C-alpha cells in the first residue's frame, strides 16, 4: 500500500491516540503497586499495567520509525495538550471499584480495536494486534471475572460496582470520540472507525454487565466525555505528566 503525506499524518494521529491511552491507563494502574486489595491481585494488576505500558512503547517505536521523536521523549517530555488520550484514562485511581470498572471498559474497547486492526492494511499495525492478543485476552478475563463476581457478591460490592459504572460510563464513551481523519483511514483500510468499534463494544460489555447484575445508563443519559482526542484534557492529566517526567526532565539529554 502506498501512503501519501496526508494519510501519514492521519495514521500518526491514530497511533498517538492508541498509545497515549495505553500509557496513561498503564501509569494509573501502576499506582496500585504494593497497595492492592490482596497480594495475589496486586501482582496480577501490576502485570496488566506493565503490559499496557509495554504496548504503548511498541507503538511509540512505530511512530519513531515514521519520523517522530524517540519513545522516551514522546512519553516523558511532551506537553499535555499534545497527548491524545481519552479522559477515562486520566482520572486518579480512586477506589478499587473505579479502577476495576475503568479497566473493564477500556480492555473491551482495546481488545475490539486490536481485533479490527488485525485485518488492517498497515502491516505494523496488523502485527501489533496479533502480538498482543494473548496479553489483552488475559486483561479481559481479569476484568470480566472481577466485574461479574463483585457485581453479584454482596450488597456493598454491588452498590460500589454500580456506582463506579455510573461514574465511568460517560468517560468510557469518550474513548470513541471520532477524529477528523476517520474517513481517510477507512478509505485506505487502516481502521473502520470509532462508531463501528463503539457498537461492537456496547454489545460485548452489555452481555457481561448483564451477568454481573449491573445496569447501563439509558441512552438518553449518555453524555460522552469528548475532547481528549483533540488535546483537551481533564485537570488530572497535567499534574500526572508533571510527576511522570519529574526525573527525566532534570536532564532530558542525560541517559538514565
Amino acid at each position, binding site marked *: 500500500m502506498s501512503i501519501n503525506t496526508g494519510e501519514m499524518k492521519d495514521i500518526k494521529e491514530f497511533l498517538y491516540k492508541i498509545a497515549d491511552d495505553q500509557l496513561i491507563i498503564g501509569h494509573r494502574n501502576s499506582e496500585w503497586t504494593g497497595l492492592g486489595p*490482596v*497480594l*495475589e*491481585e496486586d*501482582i*496480577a494488576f501490576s502485570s496488566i499495567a506493565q503490559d499496557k505500558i509495554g504496548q504503548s512503547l511498541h507503538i511509540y517505536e512505530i511512530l519513531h520509525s515514521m519520523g517522530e521523536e524517540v519513545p522516551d521523549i514522546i512519553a516523558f517530555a511532551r506537553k499535555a495538550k499534545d497527548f491524545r488520550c481519552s479522559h477515562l484514562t486520566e482520572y*486518579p485511581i480512586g477506589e478499587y471499584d473505579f479502577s476495576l470498572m475503568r479497566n473493564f471498559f477500556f480492555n473491551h474497547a482495546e481488545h475490539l480495536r486490536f481485533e479490527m486492526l488485525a485485518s488492517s492494511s498497515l502491516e505494523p499495525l496488523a502485527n501489533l494486534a496479533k502480538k498482543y492478543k494473548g496479553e489483552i485476552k*488475559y486483561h479481559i478475563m*481479569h476484568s470480566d*471475572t472481577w466485574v461479574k463476581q463483585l457485581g453479584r457478591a454482596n450488597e456493598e460490592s454491588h452498590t460500589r460496582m454500580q456506582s463506579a459504572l455510573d461514574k465511568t460510563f460517560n468517560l468510557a464513551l469518550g474513548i470513541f470520540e471520532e477524529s477528523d481523519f476517520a474517513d481517510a483511514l477507512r478509505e485506505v483500510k487502516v481502521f473502520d472507525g470509532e462508531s463501528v468499534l463503539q457498537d461492537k463494544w456496547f454489545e460485548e460489555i452489555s452481555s457481561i454487565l448483564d451477568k454481573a447484575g449491573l445496569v447501563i445508563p439509558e441512552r438518553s443519559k449518555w453524555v460522552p466525555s469528548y475532547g481528549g482526542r483533540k488535546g483537551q484534557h481533564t485537570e488530572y492529566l497535567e499534574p500526572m505528566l508533571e510527576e511522570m517526567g519529574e526525573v527525566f526532565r532534570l536532564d532530558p539529554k542525560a541517559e538514565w
Partner: protein
Amino acid sequence: MEYIDPRVNRMELPANDDGKEIIESLEEWETYEVFHQKKRGEQHIHVGIVHAANPEIALLMAKEAFGRRRQTANLWVVKTSAVTATDYEDQDIFETTPEKTYREASDYYCMDRIRKYQEEHGIEDRKEERRKKKEVRVK
C-alpha cells in the same frame, strides 16, 4: 502533613494507633495448591499456593503469581482442603528391601542358557544380526 511520596499525599491516611485487628479471620479466603505444566507433554508440578475466594479467582491469580516468569502451557488449582496426603511419619512405608530385584529388568539375564542350548542343539547364533540391529538403534 506533606509526605515525600506523592502517592501517599494522594491518600487520606488513617490513624494507626488503635491496635484493632484490620483483617478478620478468613478474610483472605482459602488457599489453593497450584500445579504448573511447562510444556505440553510434561507433568504438572506443584509450585505453591494462592489465596482465592473461588477456583475462578484462583486461576486468575495463579496465572500471574506462578506463570509470569516461566514458560507455561497449563495450570491447575486444587483447594488445599481437597488434598489428602501421606504422613511424613509413615515415610518408612516407602522403604524397599534389596531383595526386590525380581522387578528390575537388570535381574533378567538368560543368554547363557540360550547359548548353551544352541550349542547342544546345533542352532546358529544370530550374533551378527543383533550387532547390526544395535547399530541401527544407536544411530
